[in-house]
């Protein structure tokens, strides 16, 4: 297991993202925040795997990953992804994307991801997102939170219907 962050108070962030422009934006956002520092960044899956498993000694506090890269990781090797969770139990994953399908974010939530932002989000909101997620909160697009509330109430309606059909 990697060592927890012991170097001062600055939060260690790893950025895994294919899109170079987004990487640069993220770097810029974090550079202006004295409480955050970038531990490493990679643009492809093998590089990301090497970075997290071999190249850094210190466990990151936050991993910001692009949705495309994350989908590749799940599609090709979900076992490695899950084992990373075990070696870095304290690290929180935040996902960034240009767009999303509801079901993709539903899946992320199921896997315990509590941070999601759309690319183009202002830097100050990205660092706020990181802090909120680190403190155990949720940071998602407002419209997506509304979708989850709808899902929960629909689920209740469906359950009610099933109960009335089955006579429970």
């Amino acid at each position: 297991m990697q060592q927890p962050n012991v170097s001062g108070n600055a939060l260690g962030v790893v950025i895994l993202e294919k899109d170079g422009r987004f990487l640069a934006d993220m770097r810029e956002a974090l550079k202006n925040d004295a409480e955050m520092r970038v531990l490493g960044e990679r643009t492809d899956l093998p590089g990301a795997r090497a970075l997290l498993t071999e190249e850094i000694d210190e466990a990151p506090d936050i991993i910001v990953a692009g949705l495309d890269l994350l989908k590749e990781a799940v599609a090709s090797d979900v076992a490695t992804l899950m084992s990373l969770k075990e070696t870095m139990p304290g690290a929180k994953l935040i996902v960034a994307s240009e767009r999303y399908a509801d079901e993709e974010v539903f899946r992320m939530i199921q896997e315990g991801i509590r941070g999601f932002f759309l690319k183009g989000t202002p830097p100050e909101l990205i660092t706020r997102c990181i802090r909120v997620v680190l403190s155990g909160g949720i940071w998602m697009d407002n419209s997506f939170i509304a979708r989850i509330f709808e899902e929960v109430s629909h689920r209740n309606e469906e359950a009610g219907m099933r109960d009335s059909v089955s006579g429970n």
Partner: protein
Amino acid sequence: MENSARDTIRIVIFDGDTTFVDSLKKTIAAATDIRIVDVRGDIDSAKAFILGVRERIDLILVSFNILKEVVASDMETLVKLKENLPETRVVVMGERYVEEEIFRMVEQGIKGFFVKGDISSDFIIKCVRVVAQGQVWMDANLVNRVFEEFSHYYAQAEGKLRSPSHEETDRLALLTKREMELLELVSMSLKNDEIAERLFISTKTVKTHIRNIFEKLGSRNRVDATLLYIGASKRRPQVAQLEH
């Protein structure tokens, strides 16, 4: 400048606490985009309003006590509320925050909640605007709780996340060229209407294609199908070109 009738958020207040209602009226009077259409102070007059309403109401601000009474005693009024005002959103105003009770209300479709003494005038206005726009206004702890419940429910329904096997990715060979084209767009997180626009077809046709794709691949949803597509592309980058 005056807001047009359509831009104005039309609200109704159901609350018997006259002191609170008076201050709420003053608060809302300051917002030119919000109009109080009616105020009812007890359960019977609130029920009469719901049963007889014919005009557009965007939002109902209801005290927790009145709502609790309606839920406990009168299912017919709740059914009528959904029939007569299907687009209307409900915000509950409570005296205190009891997570379990509020969570049950969320399950009933409540989109907003605040504790009367804990919210400033500015935030009441903000809450009305946010909920009227289709978003939610809730305590952060409750949002966490809703996410946990949703996550638990979704995990039960969908099972564990896993990488597709070779046998599963081989099923991509069953898809037509058009279906592969569509699946590629699904894997890029495009929604049905966006796919329809890109391929110059109707949303209905997109849905039919997607149903057929799911059936051929044995996928239950877009995520399963996307993982198959990406998994195959990673194993054989040329898969899309080779097969068709």
